[in-house]
């Protein structure tokens, strides 16, 4: 499969490869919080640390544009679909839509 040089393409590609994908920066504490959230739910997310990726900077910029937010990370994809940043993830968990999504994507078996 040809590797797209477009960073957004790469983001989408990586996001579709696993049931739950988190784009993160290793020093970011909010990223740590979202990782802890999923681990606490018994989910094992695939995490890409953009500061450790050679194309990370470009991908971060692409995510910024996608979210319309200077804060690119953390950002969560479930089943290849964009869920959003921490606030969207938490809202989704509180209103009960997160768990069904995880189950549907095969990230959670309970």
């Amino acid at each position, binding site marked *: 499969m040809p590797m797209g040089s477009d960073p957004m393409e790469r983001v989408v590609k990586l996001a579709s490869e696993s049931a739950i994908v988190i784009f993160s920066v290793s020093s970011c504490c909010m990223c*740590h*919080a979202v990782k802890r959230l999923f681990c606490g739910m018994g989910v094992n997310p695939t995490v890409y640390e953009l500061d450790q990726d050679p194309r990370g900077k470009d991908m971060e910029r692409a995510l910024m544009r996608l979210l319309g937010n200077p804060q690119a990370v953390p950002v969560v994809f479930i089943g290849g679909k964009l869920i959003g940043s921490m*606030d969207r993830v938490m*809202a989704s*968990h*509180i*209103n009960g839509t997160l768990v069904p999504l995880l189950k549907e994507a095969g990230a959670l078996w309970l």
Partner: protein
Amino acid sequence: MANHRVGETGLTDSGPSNHHHHIPYAHVLHGMNAPTSFLHQEGAAFDFGELEEAIVLQGVKFRNDNEAKPPLFTTPRPAATLDMFPSWPMRFHQTPRQGSSKSGDEISTEDSESAVNTLSSNKTENNQLEPESPISKKASSFDHKPLQQQQQQHLQHLQQLQQQQIDQMASDNSRTGTTSQQQNQSASAAKTTPQEKRRGSTSEKQLDAKTLRRLAQNREAARKSRLRKKAYVQQLESSRIKLTQLEQELQRARSQGLFLGGCGGAAGNISSGAAIFDMEYSRWLEDDQRHMSELRTGLHAHLSDSDLRVIVDGYISHYDEIFRLKGVAAKSDVFHLITGMWTTPAERCFLWMGGFRPSELIKMLISQLDPLTEQQVMGIYSLQHSSTQAEEALSQGLEQLQQSLIDTIAGGPVIDGMQQMAVALAKLANLESFIRQADNLRQQTLHQLPRILTVRQAARCFLVIGEYYARLRALSSLWSSRPRE
């Protein structure tokens, strides 16, 4: 020239405000010389409609003369310049005497000097040549009489004048630069060309485009100035009110011992963002009481579900508002929120990330909300579970932030203090996002409750929440005011 005018009449002039009123006073003075009507008149035909409008406007103007802000045809000076002489701004906007002096009835844009000259000359002429004119008499008397008197006199005279002008106009269709004064005069003096120099003479029907535009612009500028001034005054007023409220709040807070003992002068140490938030929060608390009594009466009155729904939605919006305010406050003073200095001591005791802990609130509610259906019970427990997980995640994230901060500050020999501080500051900035996420969690939890409960249950639920925190606050007050040995 206006200065001359003032000097001559001895009337005071509301100085700077003059500049806001660019309407040629003389235009207004001379009956049908309402600038608009004036400007619209062309040729010899006289428009009675416009005359009437001008007269009416003059009447309005006179009534308003004693007020601060007369409408439309305003003059900063009182009836003083009721006579034919222009007020201050006039010299920039008025039609010059010279216009009238040219019997061509041309109102050309004038320059101040000529206006000045013509003004003084006019006055002189007026006095000299038209002694019978009520206005000229008036003019001289202006110098000596008190303002009010002059105004009244002027009003009478002008009314007479207007009538005379109407008569004159009716009989004289060809405007040949006759001024209102002249109309009052015996024919000879009245119609002489020099009299035309009178400012804003009624005879001037033709204004060139430039003057028209200028006059219109001046009106517009005057209007805008008035609006600006009004807005500014309103702003000052509300600021003053806010200030007194703030002071009251600080006073109240200080007396209730909200500021911890260690900082006796704490009131002086509070940041402006924090002070503003505290004030808004106390207002929110008052609103809270109002909402609660609404809920109470709504429940007891057995309102319909839709009516109750409105009240419930109102309470949720009320909470949305405090979260919004906290978001603003977090930007300016996140420590104020984190340390809980905005709440009462008892609340502060249970503080989690700058506010209440959602799972604790749910736990409290579970016992208060019976009877619940099985599905509702599951919904509530699920809500408690997910909020606990979210709280855990945020707490762990915050812990990592704290650890990272400690590492930065404590790290090794201080080789580059400023660099170290810069890094620490950047990390500290993340505090705001954690507080925002915590408030977001609180908000989402409250929004979820009416989705699980019926309307009546939701109303009761919010009443319970409101009363719970009210009691906690009351407990704080009692505690701080208890007799100590």
